[in-house]
């Protein structure tokens, strides 16, 4: 049984070959593309669980490809970057990636990232019976992962959804950076503050009326983040 279908996108044939060989031996089904355009084509006709996307490619680069994939799909994306600078990492996450790995990487590290990205939280909101949330002008439908803010509907990616769910079942409680990272990304994480910064911003853009002055997803300086739920919230 396959552990998942992975699309490897890199312009270097050796890397594609190495990825194909190593990932296949770990039980993944692997397909590969040479360019961003080719990958987008492939994603239209086949289904995958995860895309391994190189940042530095000729044609439309990895960042742009990531944005294009994200505009129509919430598939898991891990970006492969050469540079380890903060800016490049944040760029990758901003474009919609779930995670990134710096080249060259070790296979155990990559496999751990793949597992963490594919790993889903147990559907906690189901247990609490919280399926739909309607707050002043904002409607969050947890069963279809859709958010509507004043008639503007957007869909949450898997990681965004997990993060929001984690907040929603712990309303009005400050949650530390480490707890959030470990709960949503996995036990190997804990220091990647830039992940949280980017994902919280992405969530704010989707659920807040004014993302620069958040009403729900508020920052508690030094400590972490808190989901502020007015007491008169409506449960259905």
């Amino acid at each position, binding site marked *: 049984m396959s552990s998942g279908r992975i699309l490897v996108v890199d312009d270097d044939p050796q890397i594609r070959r*190495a990825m194909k060989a190593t990932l296949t031996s770990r039980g993944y089904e692997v397909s590969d593309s040479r360019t961003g355009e080719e990958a987008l084509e492939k994603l239209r006709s086949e289904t995958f669980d995860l895309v391994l996307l190189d940042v530095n490619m000729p044609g439309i680069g990895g960042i742009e490809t990531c944005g294009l994939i994200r505009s129509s799909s919430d598939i898991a994306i891990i970006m492969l970057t050469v*540079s380890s600078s903060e800016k490049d990492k944040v760029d990758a996450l901003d474009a919609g990636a779930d995670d990134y790995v710096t080249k060259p990487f070790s296979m155990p590290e990559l496999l751990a990232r793949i597992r963490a990205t594919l790993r889903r939280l147990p559907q906690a909101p189901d247990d609490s019976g919280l399926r739909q949330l309607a707050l002043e002008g904002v409607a969050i439908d947890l069963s279809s992962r859709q958010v509507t803010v004043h008639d503007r509907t957007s869909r949450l990616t898997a990681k965004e959804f997990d993060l929001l769910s984690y907040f929603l079942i712990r309303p009005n409680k400050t949650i530390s950076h480490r707890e959030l990272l470990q709960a949503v990304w996995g036990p190997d994480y804990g220091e990647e503050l830039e992940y949280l910064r980017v994902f919280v911003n992405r969530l704010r853009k989707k659920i807040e009326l004014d993302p620069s002055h958040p009403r729900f997803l508020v920052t508690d300086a030094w400590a972490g983040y808190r989901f502020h739920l007015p007491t008169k919230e409506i449960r259905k």
Partner: protein
Amino acid sequence: MVTLTESHTRSNFERVLQKAGRLTLRLLLALSLIAAITFVFFGHVNATSVGFFYLVAILVIATAGGLVEATVASIIAMLCFNFFFLPPIGTFTIADPQNWVALFAFLTTALTASQLSARLKRQRKEAQDRQQEMERLYALSRAILLTDTTQPSAKQIAHQIVNVFACPAVALHDRSANEIYLDGPEALPDIDGKLRESASRSIVTREDAGEILITPIRLGGEPIGSLALKHAFLSDAALQSLLNLVAVGLERARAQEEVNRAQVARQSEELKSTLLDALAHEFKTPLTSIKAVTTDLLSNPDESLSQQHRGLIAIADEGADRLDRLVTEAIQLARIEGGKFQLNREVHFPSSLLSAALRQTKSHTDGRDFNLQVEDDLPLVFVDGQLIVLMITHLIDNAAKYSRPGTPIAIGAKASEKSVIIYVTDQGPGISEDEQAHIFDKFYRGSRGQHLKGTGMGLAIAREIIRAHGEEIWVRSNPGQGSEFWFSLPIAPPGSSE
């Protein structure tokens, strides 16, 4: 030189001669006019009418000629009037005392009229001169605005002064470029020293009996050069305007040049950065496939690999790691050494910088005891967190490399007056005083470290990072007693938050 002076004197002499000739001619004309009136009216017109005719003639002379001609004509007319028209006619004596009054009134009127007329004429000439100066200054300002970059601006300005003011010789000293440009058909002997003196001491001098004027060019009170002009018959106001124009022109050229230089520097910096990125990509791409394969094989749990094969693959894996570090550090160093990289400063806890560095080094320094000593209540620091963590990892890597396995490494932070001091100390063999002078140099490796793996760039990178923050790094070591590396970090301004 002698011939030059001679030709000068000659030309001066000729000029005076010409002037005298023209004056004589005009005087002759004036006198013939008076004589004509006398001749035409003598004998049959009364004295009063003739007096008025003389006055009209003198006014005409004063308007057409000058003060000298009018004055001479007035006196001659007065004498003629007396001799030919006032009785007794044919003598210079006057019988009737009333005629004395008339003669005196005539002379006064004639002289005053000629004075007034001459003054008017002089004023008109002055106005014309001012206007010409204004036009020339305007032409010069246009020319200065239109200077291009094919030649030094100061050279072009000197040339334009010669053109516009018809100066026989001009020398312009541009102090910031330390250049002197000469222009014009005549020479200015030994002018260099005088120009420099005028600029440095900010004094105005005249040479060659006032023919050459040397004056400093000031901008905002500061002398930025000096100008020597030969035969420049300019009013003080025009000269000041000329100097201001030249000052503005020089300053404008200097500013333009500065902008150009900054642009070239920025472009070359961008090129360098692009090249480095391309280089990083080219090296890291093959390393990625090598590492993927070696780490996959080494992490494979099944026993398909023999112990021997595992050992061989581990060698390839370590080689790839080392190559990766070399490439990374070479690029870091090149980037940081460019000196133009942007510090991405933020507020950080010193302790989180230390723990981040420790986390990143753990993989290479397995099994070492790290003794973390952080003072309580340390102030926050304002630094580029990524770079500081990078340099602390270099220091920790060094400490681990140059000390025996199993000996502890201490890492700590403490507050000083104006900064937070961070240190990394080991119990290795220490560094001799000679070597301490060199350890921060690129590619330098301690005498005991020749066999060790490393790039020799770690401390050079550390020093560049700390310098970019305006802080210091230093080493304390006694051979046999270990080494201590210390550096300071700037404290964040009060009231800032992470």
